[in-house]
């Protein structure tokens, strides 16, 4: 039960438990003997009964009883009476075991198993449950079993919903009851049962209900959890949406060949250096989807006349679902006239097939177009990427003065998301609900200093901003949210990492929210200031970022400086398919596995991971979260035949796994614990195209 302090055993209690243990040992060895010899006699089964009634935790004994029941059932196949008595005896044993410990997994599971045989009456089960739920109303085993019983006896979900309401009214500090309520409501809403047809009708009452708990006792967490669920229900749009793409709709793309014309009169944001015969088409959805392929997405263009496009999901694990999908469009062979313009039209949603992981279909037919022009000019060589060493020093970067012809690569994204939202009334109540919640929690926070209240307010404000985009006339709340997270970091040091992550995400959202703020962080990269054909770099350094986000608005980025932050992971970075130069120096990346997303960045040429903590930690905690060569998900890619450098792979398999597919010309890794001469020579072997390692030219 709850709230009971743990006390050390008194000597006499200790002696008693020792005696009990001794007794149990004897019983157990006898029992195991029976089990191994498949003895299912009356005495043997009774022995297991005795054992389980003292120690219900013995899973083996429950399994033995299952075997014994099967054995007896085959013997008494025809007689329904003896069949029933066998099962009733099992139910009795389970009940007395549960009296001993009402949180015994094995016992509850055994009961389910017996009932699934279908010969016992289920009516008694609710009575039993009432007893257990009275003894401990929060016992999640009982609640779990209750769901099973309610489903087997076809008890209506409305009745169960009423039951959770009663339990919550008795004592609202009942996470299990709130949780069951959320499950029941989700089902009712999904099935569109009468009275539960629209969220608009159901959720306001639920908000009202949970407010009573939250405001009465803000220190109690159970209500807050339910509120979080409600918020999610309010904000979530079930069907997947396309939120951004590259190239952006309506854009004019200029692809530069190996040699680039100096003084090109186009915007640096739509100009793209090309060193292969393909360029990517990226679709960014608001949630992970499956089924993106040449039949669900039609690409109409001269660029790919002959064959079907292959769409690849960009996700860290080899799952079939991903938020970001990419395909490569082929450029025509041979030298084409520089004036040639290729229109491309992409349409999706005209046939079903794109489906979210929760089973909702992409349902908004949508079509967008962009134009690609090629420029292959063979004049003087300029500093194209990979031809010269990239210097990340400040003097290499110059303020960029925006030009009138610079069309924003993100402006059209908002139109994209708004156009898709055809349920306008739905949108209105969602926005109104969030606004109301914000008012409530502002009021609460004016009275008390409450950590979870601040967190909830921050989440609400972000949800509000997300809903209100584009923030045309609305004032964005990001400053307030950042302040809230700063507060929380001070108030609640235990969860500082989480708050830091959230803070980073909000900060990135703020930076990317409009074109002006993005432009202020864009710099020309050039060793010689006169050169206007040089690439554009987005600088996000020194922002204390611990997590990355807002990738949907950064798909155009080719050069990114994330140095001097607090990054441990670069999860999600794989979406930036155009990225060719990446600076991650002076972060706290702890291992190569943390760099997993760069495996998908095929155009990456220059990578700087100097001054991180790679190799500094003997235990790599990210290894268990990310895929590794040993995990099944990437097994197919791991070809043992290729391994020419066996010894080094054994020592540096993580590095090998991350780097081997990359075509890096420049790599900086100085300032990491892992670096030594052996490692450097390994790098040279694994990266054959490498020209500069830690600033030194290789031969």
């Amino acid at each position, binding site marked *: 039960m709850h709230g009971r302090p743990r006390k050390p055993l008194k000597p006499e209690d200790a002696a008693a438990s020792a005696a009990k243990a001794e007794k149990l040992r004897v019983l157990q060895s006898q029992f195991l003997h029976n089990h191994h010899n498949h003895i299912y006699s009356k005495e043997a089964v009774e022995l297991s009964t005795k054992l389980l009634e003292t120690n219900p935790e013995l899973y083996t004994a429950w399994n033995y009883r299952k075997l014994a029941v099967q054995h007896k059932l085959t013997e008494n196949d025809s007689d329904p009476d003896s069949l029933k008595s066998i099962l009733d005896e099992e139910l009795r044993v389970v009940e007395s075991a549960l009296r001993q410990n009402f949180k015994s997994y094995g016992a509850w599971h055994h009961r389910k198993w017996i009932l699934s045989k279908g010969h016992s009456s289920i009516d008694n089960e609710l009575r039993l449950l009432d007893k257990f739920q*009275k003894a401990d109303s929060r016992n999640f085993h009982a609640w779990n079993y209750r769901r099973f019983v309610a489903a087997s006896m076809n008890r209506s979900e409305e009745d169960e919903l009423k039951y959770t309401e009663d339990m919550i*009214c*008795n*004592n*609202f500090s009942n996470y299990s009851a709130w949780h069951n309520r959320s499950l029941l409501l989700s089902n009712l809403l999904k099935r569109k049962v009468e009275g539960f047809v629209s969220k608009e009708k159901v959720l306001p009452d639920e908000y009202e209900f949970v*407010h*009573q*708990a939250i*405001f*009465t*006792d*803000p220190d109690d967490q159970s209500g807050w959890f339910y509120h979080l669920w409600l918020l999610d229900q309010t904000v979530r749009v079930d069907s997947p949406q396309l939120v951004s793409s590259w190239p952006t709709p309506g854009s004019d793309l200029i692809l530069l060949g190996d040699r680039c014309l100096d003084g090109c009169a186009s915007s640096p944001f739509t100009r793209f250096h090309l060193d292969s015969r393909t360029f990517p088409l990226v679709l960014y959805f608001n949630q992970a989807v499956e089924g993106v392929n040449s039949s669900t997405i039609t690409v109409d263009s001269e660029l790919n006349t002959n064959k079907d496009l292959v769409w690849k999901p960009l996700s860290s694990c080899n799952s079939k679902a991903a938020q970001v999908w990419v395909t490569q469009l082929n450029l025509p062979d041979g030298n084409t006239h520089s004036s040639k313009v290729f229109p491309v039209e992409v349409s999706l949603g005209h046939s079903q097939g794109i489906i979210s992981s929760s089973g909702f279909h992409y349902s908004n037919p949508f079509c967008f177009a962009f134009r690609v022009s090629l420029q292959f000019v063979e004049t003087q060589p300029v500093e194209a990427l990979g031809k010269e060493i990239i210097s990340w020093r400040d003097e290499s970067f110059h303020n960029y003065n925006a030009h009138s012809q610079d069309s924003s690569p993100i402006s059209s994204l908002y139109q994209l998301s708004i156009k898709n939202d055809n349920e306008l009334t739905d949108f209105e109540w969602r926005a109104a609900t969030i606004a109301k919640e914000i008012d*409530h929690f502002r*009021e*609460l926070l004016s*009275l*008390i200093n409450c950590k979870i209240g601040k967190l909830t307010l921050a989440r609400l404000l972000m949800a509000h901003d997300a809903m209100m985009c584009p923030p045309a006339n609305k004032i964005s709340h990001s400053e307030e949210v950042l302040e809230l997270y700063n507060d929380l970091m001070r108030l609640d040091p235990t969860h500082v990492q989480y708050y830091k992550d959230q803070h980073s995400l909000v900060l990135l959202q703020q930076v990317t929210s409009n074109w002006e703020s993005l432009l202020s962080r864009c710099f020309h990269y050039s060793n010689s200031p006169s050169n206007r054909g040089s690439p554009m770099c987005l600088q996000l350094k020194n922002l204390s970022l611990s997590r990355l986000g807002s990738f949907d608005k950064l798909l155009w980025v080719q050069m990114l400086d994330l140095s001097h932050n607090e990054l441990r992971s670069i999860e999600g970075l794989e979406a930036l398919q155009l990225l060719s130069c990446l600076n991650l120096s002076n972060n706290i990346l702890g291992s190569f596995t943390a760099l997993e997303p760069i495996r998908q960045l095929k155009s990456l040429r220059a990578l700087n991971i100097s001054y991180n903590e790679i190799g500094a930690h003997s235990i790599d905690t990210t290894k268990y979260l990310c895929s590794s060569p040993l995990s099944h998900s990437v097994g197919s890619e791991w070809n043992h035949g290729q391994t020419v450098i066996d010894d080094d792979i054994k020592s540096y398999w993580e590095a090998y796994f991350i780097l081997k597919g990359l075509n890096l010309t420049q790599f900086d890794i100085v300032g990491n614990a892992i670096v030594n001469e052996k490692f450097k020579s390994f790098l040279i072997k694994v990266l054959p195209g490498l020209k500069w390692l830690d600033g030194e030219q290789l031969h």
Partner: protein
Amino acid sequence: MQRNNSRDAAHRRRWQRCSTAVAATTEMRGAAVVMQKTETLTKKEEHLLLPNAAIAIVPLPDATAPAHLPLLCRQPSAQPPHPAHSFGGGFRFYHLKELCHLLRSTNSFEAEAGRLMTGNESESELPVPPYPPIEPTAFDLIVIGTGLPESVISAAASASGKSVLHLDPNPFYGSHFSSLSIADLTHFLNSHSTPSSVCPDPLYSDVEISNYASRLLSQHPRNFNLDVSGPRVLFCADHAVDLMLKSGASHYLEFKSIDATFMLDADAKLCSVPDSRAAIFKDKSLGLMEKNQLMRFFKLVQGHLSLDESEENDVRISEEDLDSPFADFLTKMKLSHKIKSIVLYAIAMADYDQEVSEYVLKTRDGINRLALYNSSIGRLVLMFQNALGALIYPIYGQGELPQAFCRRAAVKGCLYVLRMPVISLLTDQNSGSYKGVRLASGQDILSHKLVLDPSFTVPGSLASSHQQLQESFQAFSLSDNKGKVARGICITRSSLKPDLSNFLVIFPPRSLFPEQVTSIRVLQLGGNLAVCPVGMFVLYFSALCDEVNQGKKLLHAALSALQKLLVTGTAGNSSTAQSEDMEEAKPTLLWSALYIQDLSLGQFGSIISTPTPDGNLNYNDLLDATEKLYWKLYPKEELFPETTSSPENSEDDAGLTLES
């Protein structure tokens, strides 16, 4: 009534058993059957008698047997009795409640029982001769009056081995703490409000009794148990409950919880009193911020109470705050006006207007009252799963309480004689100190100590000459009282709240009229507490007052407010005109009694006088005073020491039973 007695130890033990049975029977009041038994009880009989509170009905050949005794023995065989234990010799043992039920449900009995009742009532003024002699003639302690304080003292003295004679001139137990039928209550109030030679300064005054439905009420002559000292409830964690559990008196009692508390708000509507976390959660009338403020205040109090005195902590309420008025502290805690009223008058149960009157509750005391309330809720939840309220009420009325203690006393050997007035006091010729009493039967009984119900004035014929004793009598005089309490009782046909029957209503100061300085507390009880027939309700209300006119004004204001609430409560959605018609056709108010009671505290001299029923909702102050008196009486004795837990005590330590 003849009592067997002997100084012989063996006889004494037997006597105890008999007196238990007698105590059990007397709970039936007039209809009770007296048991007479000369032979020693067997083990088996004893078992049936003591723990189960059974009653033995014995046909007696003896001429001294009361005339109504054969009545129960004539139990028609065609209608078998409720589960009863019968064994040889023509005894039948009934459980007490079964017997009550039997009497109430069987018409043939009701008539005769009724006759017997009235017979007793007529006898109540003067004892019926001949008086059987009482043996022995000397006791450690004589107690006169069977009110709660007297009963507790006699039970405690008996439990610690003193020989006690407990007398009452009334034919029933409880004195001013009894629960009576309409006729008995009328008679009791009238007889105790008219000055007489015996009682020159009566306890009650200005008794106004109105009967609006005499025909209907006369159909239920025995179905009412009206408390003389209502409204009164027990807090689950209060002193009375502790004493009942400690003494074992809880074995004879059953309780039900009071379902809710309401307060009259500024709009003259009843709003619920959120007294617990769950109640705050469920309350629909409070705003979200109010809920938050109230809960935080409760938590502050809880945090304060759970900390040690010595601990310096910001959770503790500062000494400065503890000494400030509670109302100011609540304001400091930013509680809204409405919540302040709720905390002050409906939870801390403050009597006087905390803003204008001089009787201001200190924060320290307010917090202690909240603590009692809070631990009452906790205690109930621990003991009884379904009871969530803080307050309980004994089934069959408050009169059960003194009776339970009397039965406890009887089990421990106390001798009970009802309908036995004392006519004079005996004093020592030389020292003038108290010696004993002379009974109406003419018998002289000696004792070391005497405890008196406050309404009794003993004509000191034998002691009048002695200065010392006279002085001590003056100390008992009721003229130096501390004030008055105005009490009212209503019987109605409908509840103030359609879906609830047992609840408390608070009319805080100034809620009824601007000059109302004291809080009026109303307790509504329904038929399921066996205080009235099912379908009717009894409403008790009381308020403190300084003088009679003020008290009468409070009572009348309360009565009219209640009638207004009854009308609006029953009318529901129908139009006012319609409901008025209905009211005319069928009056909701059936009967009412309004009276003013004097208050006095207990006094200690060579003779002890117990306190009158006070104006509080519970017995805490009364029992504290009683305990002090007992300690002065027997300075070395503990009140119901826990160590002497007798076997019947340990049988079930949660002897308090409660139906929900």
